[in-house]
C-alpha cells in the first residue's frame, strides 16, 4: 500500500489530532483509522466525526474486558459512506463502577448496543433509557461477558452430567499410571488440556 493511497485516512487523523487530545492514534491499514481517547472526550469526538467529517453511520460498538489491567476497553466503530473509511474510537474505563456517556442521542441504534453492553459487562451509561433486560432474562449472576464469569463452573453448578460417561480416561494419566511416572505439580500446567 503506497503512502498516497492512505491520504484520506491520514487527513482524518491529522484533523482529529489537531482538534482533540488523543492518547494514541494510527492509520491501521487502508480504510481503518484508530484513535484512543479519554472517556470524557467520547461525545465531542463522535459528534465531531459525525457533523464535520461525514462519519454519519454508526457501524458497531464493542467492549473488551482486560481483567489484568482492571479496565474495560470500549470501541466505537464509525463508517463514512463517502470516503469508505472505518474509524475506531477506543476508550478505557475502570472495571469497577466504570461509567460512560450515553450516545443514543447521536445515533439511535447505539441504544441497542449500550443496552447489551450494560447487560453483558455491567457498564453503566449515563442517562440510558431502555429496558434493563435485553438478551438475558431473570439473570441473577454477574454480567456474563466479564472474564471472571466462569462458564464451566456455572455449568457444573447449574446442570447435572448425563450419566453413562464416567468410564472416560485421560490418555496422559492413563499411560502415567501404567508406567509409574510421577509428574511434578508445577509441570502439570503444561499437560494437554
Amino acid at each position, binding site marked *: 500500500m503506497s503512502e498516497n493511497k492512505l491520504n484520506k485516512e491520514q487527513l482524518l487523523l491529522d484533523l482529529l489530532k489537531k482538534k482533540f487530545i488523543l492518547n494514541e492514534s494510527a492509520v491501521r491499514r487502508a*480504510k*481503518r483509522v484508530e484513535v484512543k481517547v479519554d472517556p470524557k472526550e467520547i461525545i465531542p469526538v463522535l459528534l465531531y466525526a459525525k457533523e464535520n467529517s461525514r462519519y*454519519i*453511520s*454508526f*457501524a*458497531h460498538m*464493542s*467492549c*473488551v*474486558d482486560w481483567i489484568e489491567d482492571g479496565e474495560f476497553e470500549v*470501541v466505537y*466503530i464509525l*463508517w463514512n*459512506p463517502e470516503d*469508505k473509511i*472505518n474509524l*475506531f474510537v477506543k476508550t478505557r474505563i475502570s472495571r469497577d463502577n466504570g461509567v460512560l456517556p450515553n450516545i443514543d442521542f447521536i*445515533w*439511535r*441504534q447505539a*441504544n*441497542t*448496543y449500550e443496552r447489551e453492553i450494560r447487560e453483558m459487562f455491567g457498564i453503566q451509561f449515563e442517562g440510558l433509557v431502555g*429496558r434493563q*433486560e*435485553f*438478551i*438475558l*432474562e431473570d439473570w441473577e449472576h454477574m454480567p*456474563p*461477558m466479564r*472474564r471472571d*464469569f466462569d*462458564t*464451566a463452573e456455572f455449568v457444573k453448578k447449574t446442570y447435572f452430567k448425563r450419566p453413562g460417561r464416567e468410564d472416560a480416561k485421560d490418555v496422559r494419566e492413563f499411560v502415567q499410571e501404567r508406567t509409574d511416572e510421577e509428574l511434578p505439580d508445577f509441570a502439570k500446567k503444561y499437560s*494437554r488440556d
Partner: protein
Amino acid sequence: MREKTTTLYLGPQHPGITGNMMVKLQVQGDTVVKAETHVGYLHRGFEKLMERRNWLQSFTIVCRICVPEPDPNEENYSRAVEEIEGREVPERAKYIRVMTLELARIATYLLWYGGQSGSAGLYTMGQWSVGDRNYILDLFEDLTGGRIYHMYIWPGGVRRDLPKGFKDKALRTMDYIEKRLDDYDKLLFENSIFQKRAKGVGIIDKKKAVEWGVVGPPLRGCGIKSDVRIDDPYEVYDKLDFEVPAMEGGDVWTRALIRRFEIRQSINLVRQALDKMPGGEYYNKIPNPHKWTIPAGDAFVKTESARGEFGYYMVSDGGNKPRRVHVKGPAYVHGVSLLENLLEGENIADVSFIMNSLGTCPPEIER
C-alpha cells in the same frame, strides 16, 4: 373514534420464518401503535463460548449464528484471524470463498422467497423456492460434506479443494435456478396480491436509513448504493464484474425487487468465480491447532451477507484462544430499534411481512 388498546404478543414461536423472537404489540383495531421487540430465546452465548475454545475450535461455532446463511460468519471469522495473524490466503482459496459466499447468498434468497411470500399467504412460492434451494445444498454437500453448516471456509483458506465434476454440476445448477427465476417472477412479482401487499408498506426514510446503520437490501432499497463487496472489497470481489442494484422507494416491494436483481447477480458471480478460478493451493495450513497462538491485536472485518453487512470485531491477546469475538449481524439494527420504529402505524398482518423483508434474524441479535 377512540379504540381500546390491546397488547398482542407475536411469537416467540417463529413469527413468520425469521426465528424465535417475540414482538410485543400495542394495537388499536388492526393498527400497531407501539412495538417492542423481545429477544433472548436464542441466546447461546457463542461469544462467551469462544473465550474457552482455541482458535480452531471457535471456527466451528460461528456458523451456527445464522442458519440460512452460515458462510459469511465463517468468512468473517477466518478473515479476522488472518488479518490479526497476517496469514496469507492462496488466490484459489479466495475464488472458492467467493463462490461459496455467492452460493450461500442464492440459497438465502431462495429461502427468503419462501418467507416473504409465505407471510403474505402465498405458499406455493415457498414450496418451489425452498425445493430449488435444495439443489444449492446438494452443491454444498458435495463441496463441504455438510448441507446446512458447512464449516468450510477456515483460517488460511478453505478446507478441501473442489471435488471432481463440481464445476459442471455448479454451472448446471446455476442454469437451472436462473431459468426458475422466471417462473418465480410470474408467481410472485407479477402477482397482484403480492404487489398490493408489498407496495407502500414498511417504508424506511432514506436519510434515517444511513444514520441508523441500516445495511444490505433495506438500505439499497432506499436508493443508496452501499455494499461491502464494493465499498471495502474483500477476497477477489474487486476482480469480478458485477453491479449492485439500488432503487428509491424504501418499502417492502423495493426491497423485494432488490433481492430479485441480486440473485441474478449472484448467479453471475458464481459463474465468474468458477471461470476465473486459478489453480494451485487452496489452503495455507495452520500449525498444530492445540498450540496455535495468534499475536495480540484486533480487527474489524465485514462481509456482505444476503441481509447486509456482517461485521466481526475480534481481539487477540496473543494466546491460543480469542480474547473477544463480537458478532454484529445486520439484524442487530434491523431487528430492534429499526423494527420497533417501522412497525408503528402498520397493520398487524404486515408485521411478519415487514420482518421478513428486513431480514430480521434473532440468532444474530443475541448470538
